[in-house]
């Protein structure tokens, strides 16, 4: 039973990684939000399993928090934002998608290499998933770099936070509750500010293309 549950954690971890790749490959913004929601759900499931396995009850709390924030609140806000801004497509990326996927594979290998010695130090049951968590973070970061529109960048930022959260749950037995609350609050405030920014960018430039921001630089 124990090993089965541990395998379940690995399953959810893989789901996170696959979803991260899917986000890199996805051009439609609406689908991106769905993928993000799914990622949040996988994270909640993984956290619940870890909580059950280790018997740490505060992890239930953080699972509930994650659910409310990442599966319900943020996706709803993102939906409203894209409705108001009327953006559905993110046509342009800086690199084409196959190249980005290849870079992503390299990143996963790098992440596993980096995580190997840290994971061997950890005594947690889910220690093998640290590499996956790190890979998720790096992939989301990559997505932030290659996307040219503001909304996918914001989603990349949020998904990076998912990776961070998963790393914390997997490698150690979760962060202290107060830190988790702080981060959750930060993410919420962050998305509010970024939403305001997105409206401002569109008002200024009639577009959400962040390349227009280059004009703000002095020569």
């Amino acid at each position, binding site marked *: 039973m124990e090993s089965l549950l541990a395998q379940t954690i690995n399953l959810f971890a893989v789901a996170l990684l696959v979803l991260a790749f899917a986000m890199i490959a996805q051009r439609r913004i609406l689908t991106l939000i769905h993928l993000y929601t799914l990622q949040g759900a996988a994270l909640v499931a993984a956290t619940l399993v870890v909580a059950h396995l280790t018997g740490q009850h505060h992890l239930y709390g953080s699972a509930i928090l994650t659910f409310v924030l990442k599966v319900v609140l943020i996706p709803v806000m993102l939906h409203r934002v894209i409705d108001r801004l009327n953006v559905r497509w993110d046509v342009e990326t800086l690199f084409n998608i196959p190249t980005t996927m290849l870079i992503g594979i390299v990143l996963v290998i790098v992440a596993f*290499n*980096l995580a190997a*010695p840290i994971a061997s130090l950890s005594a947690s049951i889910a220690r093998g998933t640290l590499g996956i968590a790190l890979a998720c973070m*790096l992939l989301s*970061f990559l997505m932030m*770099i*290659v996307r040219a529109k503001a909304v996918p960048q914001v989603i990349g930022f949020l998904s990076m936070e998912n990776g961070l959260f998963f790393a914390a749950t997997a490698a150690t037995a979760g962060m202290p509750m107060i830190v988790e609350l702080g981060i959750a609050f930060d993410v919420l405030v962050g998305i509010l500010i970024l939403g305001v920014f997105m409206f401002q960018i569109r008002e200024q430039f009639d577009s959400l293309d*962040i390349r227009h*921001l*280059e004009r703000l630089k002095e020569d």
Partner: protein
Amino acid sequence: MMLLDWLLVVIAGWLALGVAGIPALRNTGVVARLLFPAGAFLALVLAGLALAALFTEPQTAVLALGLPTLPFHLRLDGLSAFFLLVIGAAGAGISLFAAGYFRQGEGTPPGLMCLEYHLFLASMALVVLADDAYAFMVAWETMALSSFFLVTANHRVPAIRSAGFLYLLVAHVGALAILLTFGVLQAGTGDYTFANMRAQSLSPLWASVAFLLATVGFGAKAGVLPLHVWLPEAHPAAPSPVSALMSAVMLKTAIYGLLRVVFDLAGTQLWWWGVVLLGLGLATALFGVIYSAVQSDMKRLLAYSSIENIGLLFVGMGLAVLFHAYAMSALAALALTATLFHVASHACFKSLLFLATGSVLHATGERSLGKLGGLIRRMPWVAALSLVGVLASSGLPPFSGFVAEWLLLQSFLFTTGLPNSFLNMLVPVVAAAIALVAALAGYVMVKFYGVIFLGQPREPHLAHAHPASPLERAGLVWLGAGCVLLGLFPVQVIGVIDPVTQVLLGAGVGETVRANGWLFLSPTSLGRASYGPLVFLLVVAFAVALTAWLVHRLYHGRLRRSAPWDCGFPAQTARMQDSAEGFGQPIREIFNPVFRMTRELPTPFDAAPKYRVTIEDPFWHGLYLPVARLTERLARLVGRLQQGRIAIYLLYSFLTLIVLLGVVRW
């Protein structure tokens, strides 16, 4: 209570006066009639206490100010007492003058000026009392900042703001060097009290590093080449009492700091330090005097003259180090006595002259020499007292400047005894150059006095110039008396300087001087050289009286007035008098290669001819602008990193993250 405690009470009094200026922010009456005269009184008390402190044992105190485990250590010894005396005596005259000078409507309100001014005075006093690096740097930076705000009193003028910025920049570069000096001197013990620094014995290499850093740091504040550029900009920008205070007293705190480091904290002195100081001082003095000869702004002229005097002080210190390094203590004491005498003398006459320019500026609104003239009739007091200052500044007997330069040249005459043939060849050249500087300084002062006060007014509105107010006059009289008394009673003054050289060098000339009587000043022996200022004064007075009597007796009494030959040009105006530019022309020609000059000459057929000559500081183009350009180019290179694209910025953090993770991994 010890003397040191009383001194701290005076300093606290200054701070209280400054704070009292805040409620009376725009009340010129209270500030001018009450606070500034009170500050002058406190300065007098400070001078009196310092005079008493010169003849007592060193006293120490620990103030529980500052950070919890880092209290302020204070120490009052001969050197600090002497500089406190200078601060107090000059500060009293300047505060008295300032009481009549500051008024409404010059940018910063009078109450705020009062705060900055008294903060400035208090911080200077604390600088010379400080006995650990922390207290010293706090006082030093307070001094720099308060004087920065005083310089930019009239901050609505862009030129004044940029002058203030330049001053602040150089001051901070200097402060960094001073901080590093202390860092070297504490020799890795982590204890920054001066007592600990004295106890450390540094290797010659590290001692030399400390010396060079101190020369840069204190040189920046004093205005030694090539860090002098802020002086000619800041002095014309500042209100006159501030210029006077900065030139007379603040520059001297730099001299104090260098003396403290070289003779007290460093522990050893190497002979080549003396050569460095001598060379720097000589270059500075020559540069200052040549440039002051070609200025046509009266305060800028005095600023360059201050640079020259700082050069002379450095030369004196260089000689003292040289003699001390070869264990010739009596001669080192002579050179140091000359230096300290010049400190006191320069504090008196330069503040007197700066204050006089302030009176002229208030009376006429003009700073340019080309628009002044003939003010001796409108402002007789200022003219007479300026004459005293000018004579002292040119080094003429029986005034203070002469004694200082005479002592300096006396100590030069003994350099033949140095056991180093290279120096024996070099030093006479320096002595000759110093004589040249002294002569040119006289030339500059003739120009300064002649163009402002003598001749005919060059502008019609000068006829309405009003004489200085009584308080301004009182300040000028106090400083003028200083010039005269220092010159007339050098033996007594050297008696005051003697404890300082005893502290620093363990030797003094006071004994010999006293042994030779109070009438004649003779630093070594009566047979070798002596100077009796009172005798000189009596002889001069007698000769003048005799000549007057003879002229009166022989004068035939027949007076005939007729028009002088007008060279065939009928209209003669006051503008045809010799101008400041005209007076400086020979110097411009002789030292032509030194200047960076642009001239615009009119054609002979020009109906309204205009002649313009601009003289720029070669250090701007040779040193400062290249440094500025280099900085800008480096900044541009850094700017290349900033493409303005979010993806690029994100890539930077991404790569940094990967690299850092890699570092952690391996």
